[in-house]
């Protein structure tokens, strides 16, 4: 090496510095590895992680109130729920427009169902009000139409509201109403509807223009009719009445229908104001109940902690969260029961698996493999087969009871009830999860050298001491791995408790399934699921720390 005069960096074959060349190779290797992983990672993210994230989102999402009753929610902001009095006239007026549109779109019952989770009785209140909301202010509409027949004429309305062919248009209002209807019905309200409100008329009669625009959108998109050929909804006419009665200054207006509007305003000036509140109370006196209004107010923000509070037996009270009434508290009890039963199942799995794993790891290979089949066969057998087998075994006319009766240990009338209760769930699930405990224990125990115990024995330890002080501590990692695995699996079990659990042996997951498929309270199901998921993820993290996910063994 004496003839090396170059003191610069070491070069690779192609002349680049070796360090850079190696770095580049390493980077390429990393990229290739990531490239191989990417398809699966994307697949799992889309098909699995995104659904979980969606569920987490659903557990706090609560846009239905502000989507269905936007005006009411806005008016309600200034209402003081502690005053003990129902809100003022303005709220009821806003409720009228919102309710009218919602009942045309048939969305009011959905909101009623949603709010009924929080305050019983709201559902029927909404349903009955949706039916009769279009009766409000009938007299005023009649008076208007008696005054001049043009108020029944669809093309008059169309020209009035569009302001004529070449008038300045108010596209902003159209888009606003488009968004509102889209969020109300979750349908697409895009496209040309052949109507744009005129700028002048919507400045003059804002409520009427708004109501007519949503009528127009709904008519074209949902009913697939032509706007100019349909008579407007009652709500549009009521909005006109309200606009005119508010003392709109028509003196400067000279556009289409100016005379008719002036005549209508003069006529209406002599009429009393429309009593929206009275009308709603007449429809259903529950509209006076402050509790209902408080519920609407409390659940109006787009995100809520309400579902989570509900999931831990609490509710939103006047001043912050409060406990639910005693007879409605079930979830804490269910969580406790799930936890307790999972612990019992894990415990009994440890008790049963330890001797078996010990025996298997101490037998000669050939015998151990043969006996292993007895463990692996249940592991491979369909979960439903094992569950139905336990149903066959445990039921009152089942195999165990028949045997006991035949042996004379119990008499025919006193057959044991072993199914549809906690006992049934615990026995069946212990059996189902036992292989998951035996396998990790076995893989740990077969690495323990038998010489340690022999050494302890030869040093004078008794059977018990040599087991307890020498063997057992070495087998603890196996117990830990198996226990976490079994506990994680047990805590989220659904099928077995559903079939053999009856009412007292069910888990929180059964309640989640109930809320998804029967009561349709998806938000609550999502909140319960999120809590369960959090518990499992903590355990998963612990498992990863203790055992390492790479070390999971199958079969």
């Amino acid at each position: 090496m004496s003839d090396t005069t170059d003191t610069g960096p070491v070069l690779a074959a192609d002349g680049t510095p070796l360090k850079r060349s190696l770095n580049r190779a390493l980077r390429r290797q990393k990229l290739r590895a990531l490239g191989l992983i990417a398809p699966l990672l994307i697949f799992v993210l889309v098909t699995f992680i995104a659904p979980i994230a969606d569920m987490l989102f659903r557990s706090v999402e609560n846009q239905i109130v502000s989507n269905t009753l936007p005006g009411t929610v806005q008016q309600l902001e200034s209402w003081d729920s502690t005053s003990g009095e129902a809100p003022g006239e303005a709220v009821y007026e806003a409720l009228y427009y919102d309710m009218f549109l919602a009942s045309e779109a048939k969305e009011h019952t959905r909101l009623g169902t949603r709010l009924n989770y929080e305050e019983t009785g709201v559902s029927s209140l909404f349903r009955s009000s949706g039916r009769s909301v279009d009766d409000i202010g009938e007299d005023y509409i009649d008076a208007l139409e008696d005054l001049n027949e043009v108020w029944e004429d669809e093309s008059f309305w169309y020209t009035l509201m569009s302001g004529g062919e070449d008038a300045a248009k108010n596209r902003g209002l159209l888009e606003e109403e488009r968004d509102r209807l889209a969020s109300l019905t979750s349908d697409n309200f895009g496209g040309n509807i052949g109507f744009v409100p005129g700028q002048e008329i919507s400045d003059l009669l804002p409520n009427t223009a708004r109501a007519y625009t949503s009528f127009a959108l709904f008519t074209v998109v949902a009913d697939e009719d032509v706007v100019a050929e349909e008579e407007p909804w009652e709500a549009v006419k009521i909005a006109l009445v309200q606009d005119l009665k508010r003392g709109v200054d028509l003196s400067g207006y000279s556009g289409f229908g100016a005379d008719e509007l002036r005549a209508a305003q003069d006529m209406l000036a002599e009429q009393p104001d429309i009593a929206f509140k009275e009308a709603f109370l007449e429809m259903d006196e529950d509209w006076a109940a402050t509790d209902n209004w408080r519920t609407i107010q409390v659940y109006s923000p787009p995100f809520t902690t309400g579902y989570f509070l509900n999931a831990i037996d609490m509710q939103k009270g006047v001043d912050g969260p409060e406990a639910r009434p005693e007879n409605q508290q079930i979830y804490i009890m269910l969580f406790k029961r799930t936890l307790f039963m999972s612990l019992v199942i894990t415990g009994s799995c440890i008790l049963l698996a330890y001797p078996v794993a010990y025996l298997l790891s101490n037998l000669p290979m050939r015998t151990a493999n043969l006996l292993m089949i007895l463990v692996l066969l249940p592991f491979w057998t369909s979960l439903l087969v094992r569950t139905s087998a336990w149903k066959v075994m445990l039921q009152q006319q089942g195999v165990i009871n028949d045997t006991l009766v035949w042996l004379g240990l119990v008499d025919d009338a006193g057959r044991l009830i072993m199914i549809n209760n906690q006992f049934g769930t615990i026995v069946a699930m212990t059996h189902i999860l036992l292989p998951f405990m035996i396998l990790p224990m076995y893989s740990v125990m077969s690495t323990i050298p038998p010489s340690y115990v022999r050494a302890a024995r030869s040093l004078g330890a008794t059977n018990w001491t040599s087991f307890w002080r020498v063997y057992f501590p070495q087998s603890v990692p196996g117990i830990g791995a198996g226990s976490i695995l079994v506990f994680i699996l047990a805590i989220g079990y659904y099928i077995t408790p559903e079939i053999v659990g009856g009412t007292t042996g069910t888990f929180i997951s059964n309640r989640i399934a109930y809320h998804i498929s029967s009561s349709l309270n998806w938000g609550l199901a999502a909140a319960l699921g999120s809590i369960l998921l959090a518990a499992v993820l903590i355990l998963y993290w612990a498992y990863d720390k203790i055992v390492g996910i790479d070390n999971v063994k199958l079969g």
Partner: protein
Amino acid sequence: MTITVIEPKPVPFVAAVVAAAGAFCGLFVGTAQGNSLLGVFAGAAITAALAVVFLTVFRQEKAARWITTLGTAAIGFAFGGAMGGLIGLAFGWFFGWFIFWLGEGRYRSKLPPYTTSLQVFYHFLFRVICGMIFFFLITPIVVVMPLSFNAEDFFTFTPEMLRLDPEGYSLKHYRDFFTNDDWQQAMWNSISIAPIATLLSVSFGTLAAIGLSSEHVPFRRPIMAILISPMIVPLIISAAGMYFFYSRLGLQGTFWGVVLAHAALGIPFVIITVTATLVGFDRSLTRAAANMGADPVTTFFRVQMPLILPGVISGGLFAFITSFDEVVVVLFVGSAGQKTLPWQMFTGLREQISPTILAVATILVAISICLLTTVELLRRRSERLRGMSPG
């Protein structure tokens, strides 16, 4: 080889132990005949007498065991017909063996010579306890099989079945399974969903496992945690999330929705088994292939794939059985058109209880025995291959 001294044990000791076992068996026989107490005493007396006779007067093992077996079988047949005969045969064989096993002291042959009597006792007590746990593990599965041949629509053994009367047995539940449209529809759904889901998870999973097991993978742990999560997250939560999310995408209630969901659930199993196989894979083989001019694709298919194939196949079998067995997710993501076999069993168990379920269960157990055997054979082959490769 063995240094343990095997010597005959004192007759009173043997007689006492055998009598205890005889009393236990006598309890069952006595109960079946209507008098438990008599059974206990008769059992103890008869077996003790046999022990004494065989160990003192008639010490010819082979002949003695034949006599006991056939004798008890004949007595059993006389009292309880075919079933009684079988039970008698089993009892006779057991006691014939048990008496000589104890009496000749053969039970100590596999134990170290220094073990005390108490240790011997604990040793066998432990084995009996383990035997009972194995019994607990296997009985429910075994009980289902004969019940599926029940001639009645019961979930329990009928007296005809216990008498081994041919009239108590029939194949009608199997016939029902193969002719009933609901069950056939469910079976075809299962058979068409599971392979596609398996194919998806195996092809994506194998590639990713190869990527994961290369030496320099950034973010290995978090990626692994995400890929394994479908196995850890409770099924009901996966089902709920998929139900919400797939309905947004319009996949809820479609064939492909169920396939995608099942593929996601099967992925962890493929990842785990294939990465475990790759741990033993010798990287110098791929380098050698590259050195000789093979491009990465050829190297993969000609060198790496054949060696890790057992792992891939057993991962695939795990994924297959996951999809084939899965019921929670399909209950939510699927609609009536995607009703699979486990779903049909689940509704059957919850609503109308029909013994056809037991016939299906027996068929499924047979399938799982086949799968288990395949996986075991593959595992051994893979271990052999690993032993073959250098390094």
